[in-house]
């Protein structure tokens, strides 16, 4: 049918190496997500703090993260900051880049979620004797995280997809990096990347399924 001979065996023989890469990809994405959520909560607090400096920092972070390409952010985390003599390994640079991006997007999601939580709730908490931080921690934040759960799942999928950008900063242990290395050896571009695509697809499905189960557990809609 096609004027091309597929060599799937050559690609499938490398499957174990690619699966190792998939593990690294998941590690980076999960870590970036965990740190990203924590940072996004902090950024949200900064925005609520009323302090001009703090909310300025938070706003700049969010706007830069949302208005420049992720590839740019990762490249910057490696080559940009090195101009100041700060050196990160490819793994760290990739993690930093994605985390920066995650935190920015999630903080914006949290802001949207906060609008759905009436002020009166936090005020009621305050009048019960909770401190401002306690009111946020026990009343506002749980609802905020629940409302943002779907955007968070999407962000997690994006984090997985973003790991593929690590090659630009010398990463070769993640799924994309491994695939590209193998491609340099064998030049079997189509077969290798098709296998990588299937693995990526399965990872995102597992994450979405996991998120759905988790949501059912946690929120009991």
């Amino acid at each position: 049918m096609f004027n091309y001979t597929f060599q799937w065996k050559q690609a499938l023989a490398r499957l174990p190496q690619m699966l190792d890469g998939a593990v690294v990809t998941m590690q980076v994405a999960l870590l970036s997500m965990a740190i990203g959520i924590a940072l996004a909560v902090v950024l949200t607090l900064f925005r609520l703090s009323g302090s001009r400096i703090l909310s300025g920092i938070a706003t700049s972070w969010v706007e830069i993260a949302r208005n420049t390409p992720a590839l740019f952010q990762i490249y910057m985390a490696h080559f940009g900051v090195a101009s100041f003599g700060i050196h990160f390994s490819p793994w760290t640079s990739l993690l930093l880049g994605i985390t920066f991006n995650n935190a920015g997007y999630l903080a914006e999601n949290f802001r949207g979620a906060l609008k759905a939580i009436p002020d009166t709730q936090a005020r009621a908490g305050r009048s019960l004797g909770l401190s401002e931080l306690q009111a946020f921690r026990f009343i506002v934040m749980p609802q905020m995280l629940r409302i943002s759960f779907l955007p968070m799942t999407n962000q997690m999928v994006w984090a997985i997809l973003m790991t593929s950008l690590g090659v630009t900063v010398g990463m070769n242990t993640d799924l994309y990096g491994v695939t590209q290395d193998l491609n340099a050896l064998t030049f079997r571009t189509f077969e290798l990347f098709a296998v990588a695509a299937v693995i990526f697809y399965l990872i995102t499905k597992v994450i979405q399924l996991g998120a759905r189960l988790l949501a059912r557990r946690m929120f009991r809609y």
Partner: protein
Amino acid sequence: MKFASIIAAAVATASMAAPALADKLDDIIASGKLRCAVVLDFPPMGSRDANNQPIGFDVDYCNDLAAALGVQAEIVETTFPERIPALVSGQVDIGVASTSDTLERAKTVGFSIPYYAFENAVVANDKVEMADWEGMKGKTVGATAGTYEAIWLEGQVKEWGEGQFRPYQNQADVFLALSQGQLDATVSTVEVAEANVKSGNFPGIRIVDKAPMVPDYVALIALRSEHGLIDYLNLFINQQVRTGRYAELYAKWVGEGEPADLTIKGVYR
């Protein structure tokens, strides 16, 4: 069932018939255009001048070939990892991109006879103590993803069992990382190493030693099935050497001395 298979056969023949008549060489001549994949961050083989126009040994080589074919040359910039996808996806007709002719790769693409041969050098950051190539053991080293030296260096790091290997997407990123101190050392072709040290673009780096590798014979690449084109490329390379153009380009881009010998003693191609 029978009817369907007849139709399928007819469609298949119809779709196959047209391209089977002319081969790539004919296509190039007919289209009046030769599209070459060239890596442009690989001085002196390929780089850009102050107007961001492509220049270098490989660029001239492509121009010469186009002139021989009587067509216009079109330089398509690719990175090392992207040159094969560019070739097999038909965005370029050939690659003049310092492609090492390994047996593993020859399973996928067609190689001409070698048109150049590199020796490789170890380049280190000034702050790192290193006497010879074995000093790279245990250090953070890197090279350009998808190149002969990267494959060698990664193998070497694995063999040593210590240290770290990082492939970057292009030569410039490797030297940038080396100059910034993110890498302790790299292996690159002697030509590239000397050009980069000399240019002053990358302060704080020095050439340490030659890398103990078999010379890196690089060839032009075309689709594996295009024998007519590959035959033409072979003759073209032979003519470049025969007419002295090879030595001329070497003097223009690389410098003094003898250009690398492209023959291997004791064996036919």
